[in-house]
């Protein structure tokens, strides 16, 4: 079946991009293959692991469960917007300090989910932190150090206004 290609305009980390793509292209593949932004990792490709988490208009979303064409006009944020090796973002720095990563495969998804959490969620107790983190899977750390990092970030942020 011939597929009609669609021209897409999105903003990724504040940079505008236009591309002509097949409707079936997943947002995760669009970011990685079309834009070369390989910081967004692809794990399970069916919305279970959370590695591909990005922000769409400020809210976390699985990029493997989003079609790129659905992101028309949307502000996308990926881990590349958080910082660089020389200048880590605040969440990345907290991860480094607390040893909240080992192999690092799941880390971009965690960083983006935590960005959403810190903007929108109370995170007043470890229980709330753990519930908010429950959509992301990490096979190395056992989560303790990730919880420690988020606890510090939440304390630093203070109560939501």
């Amino acid at each position, binding site marked *: *079946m011939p597929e009609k290609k669609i021209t897409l305009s999105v903003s990724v980390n504040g940079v505008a991009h236009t591309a002509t793509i097949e*409707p079936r292209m997943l947002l995760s593949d669009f970011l990685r293959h079309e834009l070369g932004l390989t910081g967004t990792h692809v794990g399970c490709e069916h919305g279970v692991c*959370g590695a591909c988490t990005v922000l769409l208009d400020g809210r976390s979303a699985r990029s493997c*469960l989003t*079609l790129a064409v659905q992101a028309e006009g949307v502000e996308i944020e990926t881990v590349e917007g958080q910082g660089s090796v020389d200048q880590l973002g605040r969440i990345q720095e907290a991860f480094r300090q607390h040893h909240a990563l080992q192999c690092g495969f799941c880390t971009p998804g965690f960083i983006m989910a935590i960005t959403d959490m810190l903007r929108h969620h109370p995170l007043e107790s470890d229980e709330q932190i753990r519930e908010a983190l429950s959509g*992301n899977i990490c096979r190395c750390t056992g989560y303790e150090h990730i919880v420690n990092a988020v606890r510090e970030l939440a304390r630093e942020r203070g109560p939501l206004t």
Partner: protein
Amino acid sequence: MQVKFENAPWDGEAGRSRDDKAFRDISEHSGAHGRTMPESAFPIDGGGMKPAPFEYLAATSAAEAAEALAAANGDGKIIAGGQSLMPMINFRLVKPTILIDINRIAGLDRIEKHGERLRIGATVRHRMIATDALVHRHIPILHDAMHHVAHLTVRNRGTFCGSVCHADPAAEMPMMTLLLDGTIAALSIRGERQIAASEFFVGSLMTSLEPDEFVTWIDIDTLPPETGWGFEEFSRRHGDFALACVATTMRIVDGVACDVRFGMMGVGETPLRLPDIETLVEGQAISETLLQDVSEALKGLLQPNTDIHASADYRRHLAGVLARRALRDAWKRATFRKDGPDA
């Protein structure tokens, strides 16, 4: 081979980890062996785990979506949150010729109170329900239930109506729609049809929607302020699908339970309302003897499946335990609230 579930628009919440019943059911229908990721789930026609080609339409009106769905002749799918549909598409379990996106249709993203009913539009996200003041005030049991729906990131995208259309027998929103005497509005080029929740769920992942119909809103009951509720779910990990779940509401009038509602999920092919249990509890005060009678009665009423997570016997036992807890909670809350909504 394409497996078609004509009645399920494959949409809504999910993306939850489990030995996915949906995948197993479909693999069974396609004649393959049911496992976590059946062989039939992997693309037959090449490549990795990527969707087969389809056309895409971002509809700007409900009428446009209805026309496109009718034109697709049964091979079109509606997408809203996509949290159940997209995994199916990625696995090529569903291969629509056209995906009709309803996210850009104005007015479908509202929660509105009409008299004693709450109307939830087709693109209202789980997150919106979890944080909505009307829901919190008028249907606190729904507010509570939202905490069990998948995870934060999935709740950001997944929709209430999509979850109901997906009709997973272990998902919260289908059960809540049944518990709250929901009405489902189905639109097609033939017009709007209103379907009672009791007529909507016909099997695992199957609804009474016609292939050219899609849901534009669902109405559910609000509850009188003195209503008490209990919601007890057991799953292996927080946010996963339930092994069993009980939701119940009641008021207390003259010292006994009245307007009792009792729903369950995870223990059958569809979400359940159990009128026998409702009758058993109606007009009674909750006591240990009554709770014992309820769990005995449940054993006879339920026919749960045995699967990798739990045996049918275990699920029956779990149902009794959760029912006792939920009924106790509902009684306690109703006792507390009967002196006034703000008591």
